[in-house]
């Protein structure tokens, strides 16, 4: 609702902001990837902004984007960025909210990590990496969180079929069948 946040952001860091909008009342700013940390620091530390509370971090895969009721030019094609990483922030003092969206090309799905600024994003960026394969540069511990390490692929990507199976995983650190493992003195 408060357009002032978007206006202040565009005034303070004009080179970083690609565009702004407020769909359904959510203030959203599209930020260039290389300026993300600068923008995030400003949003967190500026006296009028004070976005100290992280809300969520996720990613949108635009591969199948064919919106109904929108012009054909908005359909996704190979020339457009495939992923958008979205960070939502909140200010506990001023109660305003903002969403930062960063567009990433398919060939280079990397995004700077904001885990050092807001510790909540540590796990949420791990989740986004786990599900979409977005590499967060500067993340202290980027590994899978929900899925097991041997999982192949990134399931929430649109080209990962829902029914796809994963191979069974061998665990050599476990005995084959501890109940039936032979004890000394037993036959066989």
């Amino acid at each position, binding site marked *: 609702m408060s357009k002032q946040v978007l206006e202040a952001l565009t005034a303070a860091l004009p080179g970083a902001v690609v565009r702004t909008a407020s769909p359904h009342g959510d203030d959203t700013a599209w930020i260039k990837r290389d300026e993300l940390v600068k923008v995030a620091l400003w949003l967190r530390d500026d006296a009028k902004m004070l976005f100290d509370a992280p809300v969520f971090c996720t990613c949108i895969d635009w591969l199948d984007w064919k919106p*109904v*009721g*929108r*012009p*054909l*030019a*908005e359909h996704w094609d190979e020339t457009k960025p495939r992923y958008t990483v979205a960070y939502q922030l909140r200010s506990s003092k001023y109660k305003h909210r903002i969403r930062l969206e960063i567009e990433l090309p398919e060939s280079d799905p990397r995004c700077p990590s904001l885990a050092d600024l807001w510790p909540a994003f540590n796990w949420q960026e791990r989740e986004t990496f786990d599900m979409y394969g977005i590499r967060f540069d500067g993340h202290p511990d980027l590994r899978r969180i929900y899925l097991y390490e041997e999982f192949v692929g990134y399931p929430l990507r649109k*080209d990962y079929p829902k029914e796809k199976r994963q191979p069974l995983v061998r665990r050599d650190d476990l005995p084959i069948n501890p109940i039936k493992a032979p004890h000394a003195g037993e036959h066989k």
Partner: protein
Amino acid sequence: MSESVTLTIDGQSITVPKGTNVLEAAKLLGNDISAFCYHPGLPIVAQCRQCLVSVEKNPKLQPSCQQVVAEGMVVHTTDPQSTLARKQQLEFTLVNHPIDCPICDKAGECTLQKLYFDHDNADSRVDTNKVHKAKVVDLGPHIVLDQERCILCSRCIRTCDVVAGQHQLEFANRGDHEVLTTAPGEQLDNAYSLNTVDVCPVGALTAKDFRFTMRAWELEATPSVCNGCATGCNIEIHHKNERAWRLVPRLNAEVNQYWMCDEGRFTYHGLREERLASAIVDGLPASWDKAIQTAAKRLGVFLKDPSQVGVVLSALCSNEDNYALAKLAKAWGAGHVYIAGKPPVPARADGKLRVADVNPNTTGVKAICEAFGFTAIPTYELDRGLPENLRALVMLGDVVPGLDANKLKELEVISLSAHERGPVPSARVALPIAAWAEIGATTTNIKGRVQRMHAAFAPPGAALAGWDAIVRLAAATGQKLAWSHARDVFKDMTQTVAAWKDLTWQRDVRPLALRFAGSRG
């Protein structure tokens, strides 16, 4: 005068080529004006009056399908007058429409359902009996008509007139008793009759082949190319649970526009006929490893003098499969190369979509042979008999007319086939390969156009893609073909065949759930 025109629709400006109608221009803006009788491939009649819009400086509402764009035209589609007109038109259409949705084949892909839900959504104001007409009218060998569901848009009549060139359907009676019926003395039996089922916006025309077999919203659509003849109409395979349920045409302005012939539609039945699902060695099922080893051992004997080895390429298999076998043959130095394919059917050639050559890939196989420098001999011209020094034959496919069945028994035959018929049961080793609907590969149509098919589902049992089987066979006989994906075969192939060097591999398309794709009508 420039070739493009700028107009304003609902306050948004758009530039379109001259001659576009307002309905198409609005579609580019994402504005879906409701329409029944308009079809981009058929003559425009503005019969249903569903697409009425307000055009400034024009006191009456105009049908947007017939209204050609003009420079500076201002069109309104959301104003109360045209919105009310479209709603009332839908209301009229629905007044006598039977409540058949639960039993109607078109449910889930019905334009009437879609337009009502998107544009009207009002309650019924009528409480009288509906007009009754004939419910199950046999129009011809493939199509059943339900006269009550027909909304009298005349798309089917125009389809028969324009696509098939035969006038077989027309309207009879007037008012609310008007019905669709066959022209006097005619039946709906032209070779393109099933296109009328596609264009019918409601469930009035249903295909005997498909009706009551599967619900449309459960299907998934994968784009592919028809393998019925050399035209290579672009199609969609509608499948569910690893099984194809019907084929419908896909728009390709250069090949088949919006249509395909009836014969092509039935080719999906062949995907389930006599499929070879496991490798066979000496008439008994065996594992891939055993089959490959046996084949390699047997061939190895004759490969010492490669002029004894022959290879049969197939005009019914994809470019990639044929290229793989041709490359292997070249690496072996095989002495005989044949092309197998069904004999031509001259009666089919009607100047529209059907051609005499019923093999999907003759041009492709010939191009591959030329690129490798083979002089390939068609098998069906080989009725003189087999050459003296031929001892072993590696055959792609199961259709080999002209090769004497008895003589084949004297040869060492390694067969790579999707179906277990023809020469396959008597082959020494039969390796199962995937059929056309199960692979991501290309075929070349009669005009030399290379078209990409996409895999709708996995092949049955242990079958693999043809090129994959050939890679294994090659490895076992000491030749290395370093391909791990059809994309690699394609790259190699386009570098070898000069005519195809500018082609690029299209990304795999995932099946589209019809349920959320909207009406096809």
